[in-house]
Every structure is written in structure tokens, then in C-alpha cells.
């Protein structure tokens, strides 16, 4: 393990809350997203898997946050949370708590964004459903990407919900080739793509042959824009994306490494630090949490 990873790993181990879960920043309340990425990052550190007690405590906290429907809920809340998809990805990658993983996946298949067919101000196919950030609202790009990756990892690539959501993602691609939060045109004006959303969308569609053109435009957008718009999150997600598509990542790795701080973190942001570790590990030949098995390529959707 190189010193950067070791330093980040120590940071992650040191910022856990007493319950074993991670907050977004040291001392804040525990949250599912940093906990999922934290677990995955520790598990990815070659030769030094997460200490069993750390792993068990974090998994125990996640399990305690799953409601009767199978969805994660935030502390003090009782509504399904979008990070349920990340829970499925985490449990699948760690190969544990498979009953919980299946329960959460079943919830995802029942959970959907609202229809948007009567809206004229934006240009999109509102009849296509993906996943929302929160119940009772529309489908947006990022939660749809997480849900697609989660369901594909549990063998649901051919489920009608998955196929429809793939079409939704392709429909939401911006004119510049990227994806943003989920609107490509408002009042006839084209909106720009965002790097992080584009990387996630390309990853979510990686096995869809019919989406190859959209993916290639997305990758071209990333290659063009990443030179001038860099942050910890953007670099980490772009590395994971390029790695999945066998594109060169050396420059991006150097840029990401240069942003690491002396305490081992990336801006003291825990989910970003964990994602940076996952990206650097993938680039160094480790596994990529968002990469789907090659055998699962789909001819059409």
C-alpha cells in the first residue's frame, strides 16, 4: 500500500463516529453515503482489509438504518433515502448481509420517480421513469445512476425498470455530450453537462450496447472538460469512469494525488476521501466498485 493510501486510510479510520459509521465531515452526524464509501475504501486497501471491528460496526449501523420497506432512512427521518442504492452496491461488493442486500434491491425495484409527461417548459421524455432523490418527485440522473449500478450488480440487468431507466438516462444527455442533474433544455436553451454526473451516467450505461453513442459523447465531454474543471470528486469519479472504459488515467491520478492534504484527506470531506482512495486503488490495478462484469453486456434496451 502506498503512503498516500495509507495516510487516507488512517484518516478514514480516525474520523469514524462512536457508532462506527462515518459522517460527511469529522464530528457530524453519521450518514449512509460516507459510510458506504468508507467501508468500500477500507475494504479496497490491498493487504490491509478493514479491521473486522470497524467493518462490523459500520455494517451494523447501516443495517440499523434500514426501515421495514428495505430502504435506508436518515437519522431522525422515516422516508426512504436515495443512498439505498449505495447500500446495495456496498453489500454486494463486500459479499455480506445478502438478505439485507436483496431486501434493499427489492425496494429499489418498487421505488420510482413521478411521471413528467405534461411539462412543456423542459425538453425531455417525461414518461420514462428512473429514480428520484426523494419519494414523490421526478427522476433525476444521479440517483438513477446509483440504482442502475446497484440493480445490475445484483443481476437485474434485464429488469424492465432497469431498461426503462437506461432509456431515461440516454434521453437526458445534454447537447454538449455530458449529463447534468437531469435537465438538458429549459425554455429551448441547452444546459451544460456536469463532470461528476457525466462520469456516473457513463458508468451506469457501461453495459448497454445501444447506448454506445451516448456513452462515447459523454466520455468525449469528460476528456475535453476535465482538463479545465478539476475537484476531488470530479477527478475521483472520472478516474473510476475512465478506468471502467480502459481509458488512460495517469494525468488524472497525478492531479487527484496533488489535492491530498497533509492529514491524508481530500478537503476533510469523508465521502470524497473514500472515493479518492477507491479511484486511486482502481487506477493502481485494484477493483473498481462501479465496474460491471463484462459478461453482462446488453445488446439493446
Amino acid at each position, binding site marked *: 500500500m502506498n503512503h498516500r493510501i495509507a495516510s487516507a486510510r488512517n484518516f478514514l479510520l480516525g474520523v469514524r463516529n462512536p457508532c462506527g459509521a462515518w459522517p*460527511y465531515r469529522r464530528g457530524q452526524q453519521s450518514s449512509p453515503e460516507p459510510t458506504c464509501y468508507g467501508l468500500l475504501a477500507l475494504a479496497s486497501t490491498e493487504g490491509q482489509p478493514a479491521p473486522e471491528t470497524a467493518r462490523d460496526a459500520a455494517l451494523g449501523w447501516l443495517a440499523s438504518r434500514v426501515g421495514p420497506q428495505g430502504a435506508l432512512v436518515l437519522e431522525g427521518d422515516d422516508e426512504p433515502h436515495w443512498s439505498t442504492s449505495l447500500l446495495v452496491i456496498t453489500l454486494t461488493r463486500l459479499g455480506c448481509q445478502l438478505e439485507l442486500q436483496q431486501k434493499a434491491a427489492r425496494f429499489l425495484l418498487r421505488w420510482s420517480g413521478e411521471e413528467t409527461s405534461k411539462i412543456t417548459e423542459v425538453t425531455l421524455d417525461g414518461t420514462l421513469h428512473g429514480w428520484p432523490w*426523494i419519494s414523490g418527485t421526478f427522476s433525476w440522473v444521479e440517483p438513477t445512476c446509483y440504482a442502475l449500478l446497484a440493480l445490475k450488480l445484483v443481476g437485474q440487468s434485464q429488469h424492465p425498470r432497469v431498461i426503462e431507466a437506461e432509456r431515461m438516462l440516454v434521453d437526458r444527455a445534454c447537447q454538449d455530450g455530458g449529463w447534468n442533474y437531469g435537465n438538458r433544455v429549459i425554455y429551448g436553451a441547452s*444546459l*451544460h453537462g*456536469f463532470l461528476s454526473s457525466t462520469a456516473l451516467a457513463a458508468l451506469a450505461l457501461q453495459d448497454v450496447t445501444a447506448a454506445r453513442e451516448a456513452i462515447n459523447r459523454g466520455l468525449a465531454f469528460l476528456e475535453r472538460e476535465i482538463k479545465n474543471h478539476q*475537484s476531488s470528486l470530479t477527478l475521483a469519479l472520472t478516474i473510476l469512469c475512465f478506468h471502467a472504459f480502459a481509458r488512460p488515467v495517469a494525468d488524472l491520478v497525478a492531479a487527484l494525488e496533488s489535492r491530498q492534504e497533509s492529514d491524508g484527506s481530500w478537503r476533510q470531506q469523508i465521502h470524497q476521501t473514500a472515493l479518492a482512495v477507491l479511484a486511486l486503488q482502481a487506477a493502481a490495478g485494484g477493483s473498481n466498485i462501479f465496474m460491471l462484469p463484462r459478461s453482462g453486456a446488453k445488446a439493446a434496451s
Partner: protein
Amino acid sequence: MNDRFNRRQFLKKMAIAGVGGTVIGGGLFYWRNRLGKVLPPEAHARVTILKAASYRANLVDLIRRGLSNYPAFLERVRGSRIVLKPNLVEYYEARRVNTHPAVVAAAIAVFRSFGAREIVVAEGPGHQRDTELLVEESGLWEALKSEQTPFVDLNHDSIRPVRLSANYTQLNRLFFPVTILGADLIVSMPKLKTHHWAGVTLSLKNMFGTVPGVKYGWPKNLLHWRGIDRSIVDINLALRPAFAIIDGIEGMEGDGPLRGETVQSGVLIMGDNPTAVDATGTRVMGLNPERILYLQVMRAHGGVLGETHIEQAGERVATVRHDFQVLPNFSCLKLGSPERKLLQ
């Protein structure tokens, strides 16, 4: 057309855009029921308008002069924990979308000089998940480093539920970041902009950025489903921002809040009654605040909207008024427009 039908359409239209929506006319029935037939008498407020030709002006001096018009507020500043909430949405080099970092930096220096115990700059961008990218590219990161002031990403803060006393959204409660809930004083620092769904976006609309993405997503779509006007009112009544400073040195007209054109409007507008500040900002843009529903509703909750109820300090509206272009569906907002519609 009954109220239930109106409301449903209203919510759907707003929700999809991710940035809200508008309906012209109708729907007053709902609000009148909520507010009651008799509105309380309107109070009085003081709003200060100061000319500033560019961001190279002595902004510290200007903001200090402006704040000096509010001695009671300055009493509260001493020893307080203050959260400055700029408007940081997306970054485009060619477009003046965000509150300029120079204005934020100047405000930090002034509040510090008036004895603030702690100052935090905080924002939860509504579209862009990558706050770090936005804060760096907008220049805010460098400005805050110079001022040795922390930035808190409200989208990823700890959150707590707050019961909604007025509950126009019918959500009963909203989660807010603890950084915001722990502030002694919240200062809303928007940009002077038109908005392609809400008509204008100023200090009250700017408070949307306090709603945490970790709970509500990017965009904060639930608020659009429940109605932008209703959400603006609920958020502001829950958080009660104590002061507003509008960066109107460069504003945005037309297809705001992201794709409009830059206007060299050359003003800072501030005051301790955010509704009055927004009403004045709207008039400076050559638009009629009386036609904006959420401002009308805020009047029922202590906000000051009427021109005769606002004491103007510094410049007068007429001397700095710069008529902003609006999208055709907002022509009813133009001052002097014969259209008698209420934008909601």
C-alpha cells in the same frame, strides 16, 4: 377552476424544471384561505441603496456605511455567530450567476469589525453536487482563504427537522443544516437577478440554498413540487434571516438565474427586513414587487412591501433604477404594466 386543480397543475409545472415554475393568475383562493381575510397592518422598514460602480470599489467602506443605518441590528452582531449565505449556483466564466466573492469578503471584514464572534460562509448549491468545484471556480475559495473564514457545504452538513409554523407547503417539517440552525444571525447575500420561474430571485429565494441536498437531492425537487412560493415562505419563516445584502453591482436580466445577460446595475441593496430589501431590489430592476405572490404573503408575516412603508436610505430607487429585461411571460411584472396579474 377549483383550487385543488390549480394546485396540482402548479406543483407539476414547477417540479419538473428542478428550478421551479410559475403560473400566472388564479390560485389566490388558496392563499386567502391560509392568510385569512384580514391582513395585519403593514410595518415600516429602512432599506439602504448604495452605488458601487464595480467590484474594485471600496466595498468594505460601502457595506460598513450601509450597516451603520441599522444600529439595533449592529447591537445583535456583537458577540454573535453569523452565517453569511451567498448565492452560489453554477459557475460559468462569462455569466454573472453568483454573489461576487469580493462582496462576501467585504461583508466578512465588516461584520468582524462590528464585533461578530464567529463568521461562517455557507451555501448548499441546488444543482451542482460538486460544491468544491463550484467554490473554487467561482473564486470564493480564494476569498475565504484570504479572510481566514470557513466555508460550510450545507448540502452535506448534519441536519435536524424543524416544524413549519405556517406550513404553506403542507410538509409539516423541513430538515435544515445545523450550521444554519446554530447561527445567531443569518445574512442572506443574493445576486440581483431575474428568474425564469419565480420572476426575481433575491434574498428570500436565496434561502432555498439552506435546504440540504443530502436529504432533498440536487435539485431540491420536493420544494418545487410543493410550490416555490410556498416553500420560500415556509423556509424564511422557519429560519428568519436577520439581514439581507444584495449584490447588484452586476445583475442578471432575461433568462435568469443562470442563462441571462449581465447588467451593470451598480448597486448594493441592504436592510434588516428581507422582504423590504427584495421589494426594493425588484423596483431597482424596474419590476413591481406587488405582483409577486411570495412577497405579498411575506407581508402578512411582518415583511414590508409597500413603497410608502419603506424608508429609503442612501440612493433613491429612481436614481439607480435600471429596467431589466424579462422573459415574455413576466411582462406583467414590469413597473407601469397595465396587466393586473399576480405572479405566483
